């Protein structure tokens, strides 16, 4: 709230840093009190702790990387931007920790509103279009998710439970009417797929990412996507005892395969850098859905993929942001020769590309390998072959574009453009993230393994 009042840029920057510091303190507090419930609506369960840690890391980098975009004092938009940014981060933090379905829903609604303010920060026609689509389709999605919640509460009407906490739902799941649960899960999946960038309502995330400022894009592609996944996963886990468990897995695999299909198809035609990265998010989320649906080692692989994807994608977005500042454009046709213009950034981009494509030595390679292993163990040959082919398409599309960007001349004009310079030190956060991802290929720290094992402890098939 203070952000809205404060009009001086420097003061705003210091306030943002203060907010980031508070966020770190809160993270430490949560780590110390892991497993406890506070205010009867928030539980610091392992999944929330994990994702909160990620969010803190990425939001720090996002805030700092966002400073160069609002350099002029006269630009009054920065107060709205920073206010919305704090709102978004706070809402996501709350939603990670919530243990009641309706509270999660309210906070996801809040993220829609704040994110749309952030998307509209450039005030161009494109931005207006993307903001309208984002708000509209996200609201429809949220309304559908609400229908799903209503169906859940309807099915719980006979059991005497009067609140919609996840713990309560887990305890009665095996008694509930399967048809209502199926409908509820379908609605919830469709509704939250706007946030998680999964088929069927993935288009909003794509449009939003292609228009928003890169730090915002990083937050949307990692924090919000994790939030969407967590909302769906919590419902999935609560209903894992019920008779619809096998059906839920099938639906998740179907949604995942369709997401990867759509991502591969569109990425082959992508002409805008941020849009290309958004399609890559779509593809990774499809893989996560497939992993959850397959079960077994897939659960571990899904969470590993989520963590590493968050780190990689955010660093890619930051790098693309710097590339935009250097080249002045995000269109692929007009960009080129990045290696000559800004070598440090180009190296980061190259490592990031290798990382996101799951080419060893990337940590994502480990997770995707585990997913394929789980597919073989589950004998889903058709899904396996389809996923492999689509991943090949994705690798082709992304690598040709990035390599062209780095090494060759722009397609439209033959000259080299430099619109601005970026200091080398601004790429530090990206390298740190990427090094973590590369290191995860060889060595996964035990605290990570522990946390993930805690999260997936209650699931069958494990």
């Amino acid at each position, binding site marked *: 709230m203070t952000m809205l009042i404060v009009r001086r840029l420097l003061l705003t920057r210091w306030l943002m840093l203060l907010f980031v510091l508070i966020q770190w303190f809160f993270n430490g507090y949560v780590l110390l009190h892991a497993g406890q419930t506070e205010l009867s609506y928030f539980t610091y369960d392992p999944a929330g702790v994990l994702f909160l840690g990620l969010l803190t890391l990425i939001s720090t980098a996002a805030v700092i990387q966002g400073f160069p975009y609002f350099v002029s004092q006269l630009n009054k938009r920065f107060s709205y931007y920073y206010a919305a940014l704090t709102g978004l981060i706070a809402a996501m933090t709350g939603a990670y920790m919530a243990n009641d379905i309706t509270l999660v829903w309210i906070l996801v609604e809040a993220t829609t509103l704040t994110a749309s303010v952030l998307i509209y920060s450039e005030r161009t026609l494109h931005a207006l279009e993307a903001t309208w689509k984002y708000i509209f389709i996200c609201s429809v999605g*949220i309304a559908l998710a609400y229908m799903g919640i209503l169906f859940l509460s309807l099915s719980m009407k006979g059991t005497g439970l009067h609140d919609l906490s996840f713990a309560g739902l887990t305890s009665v799941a095996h008694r509930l009417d399967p048809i209502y649960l199926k409908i509820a899960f379908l609605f919830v999946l469709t509704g939250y797929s706007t946030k998680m960038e999964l088929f069927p309502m993935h288009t909003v995330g794509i449009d939003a990412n292609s228009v928003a400022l890169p730090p915002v894009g990083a937050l949307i592609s990692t924090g919000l996507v994790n939030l969407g996944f967590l909302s769906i996963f919590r419902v999935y886990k609560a209903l894992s005892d019920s008779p619809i468990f096998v059906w839920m897995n099938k639906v998740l695999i179907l949604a995942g395969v369709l997401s990867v299909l759509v991502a591969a198809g569109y990425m082959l035609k992508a002409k805008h850098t941020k849009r290309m990265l958004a399609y890559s998010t779509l593809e990774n989320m499809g893989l996560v859905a497939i992993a959850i649906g397959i079960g077994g080692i897939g659960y571990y692989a899904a969470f590993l993929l989520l963590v590493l994807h968050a780190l990689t994608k955010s660093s890619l977005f930051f790098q693309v942001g710097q590339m935009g500042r250097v080249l002045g454009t995000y269109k692929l046709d007009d960009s080129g020769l990045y290696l000559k213009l800004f070598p440090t950034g180009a190296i980061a981009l190259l490592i990031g590309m290798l990382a996101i494509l799951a080419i060893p030595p990337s940590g994502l390679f480990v997770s995707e390998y585990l997913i394929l292993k789980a597919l073989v163990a589950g004998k889903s040959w058709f899904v396996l072959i389809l996923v492999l082919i689509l991943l090949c398409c994705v690798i082709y599309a992304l690598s040709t574009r990035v390599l062209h960007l780095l090494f060759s001349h722009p397609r439209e004009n033959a000259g080299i453009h430099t619109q601005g310079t970026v200091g080398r030190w601004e790429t530090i956060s990206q390298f740190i993230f990427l090094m973590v991802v590369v290191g995860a290929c060889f060595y996964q720290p035990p605290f990570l393994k522990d946390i993930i094992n805690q999260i997936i402890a209650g699931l069958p098939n494990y």
Partner: protein
Amino acid sequence: MFYLLFVLFAGTLVYLSIAERFRSYAKLIAVQGFLLFAIALIELKTVNLASLIFVLAETLIFKAIVVPHFLFRIINQTKVYRVHPKAFPAFYSLLFTMAGLFMSIILSNMLKNPSLDAVFLTIALFTLFTGVLLIITHRRIFSHMVGFLVVENAVFFFSLAVGSEMPMLINIGILLDIFVSVLIIGVLMNRIGTQFSDLESDNLTSLKH
């Protein structure tokens, strides 16, 4: 006699599928708001008084008066009065709506639940279907907006059906109403109206590839 309100509500939905002027849309949304108010008044007896008054006030003031007022203002400001000339023919949209009514009757018979009145379920599903149909088949943004309002009405209907035991759920649904309606209608439609001279979703297709 109480069920006549439901049938009237279904009648407004049928009319919505064949209406061509935006003023008719706005009037129908107002009528739906009043009908929802009447239904809420009769149905919600088991909730404590404060949240009952809140629900009733919100329905009456918000759905029946404020939102249609906003819609009329947008029509007057953007001067777009009818659906797109090459819109989805009303014949087919009526056909789909009737198929939707038929399907929701069948679906609600399949989903028998002793704690839920089947008429509620039928009308809620029918409203959801009509709202989604409006969003999918129309080309102008105003119609999309109206479709979204109809979807919200469906959700409200459903929460009325479920709500006598869990009052917080209705309040949450109303939060949805207030935030999203005010934000979308009030702020964004004005912006889009001033930027684009024609409220067509065809204009909003520049974001490709």
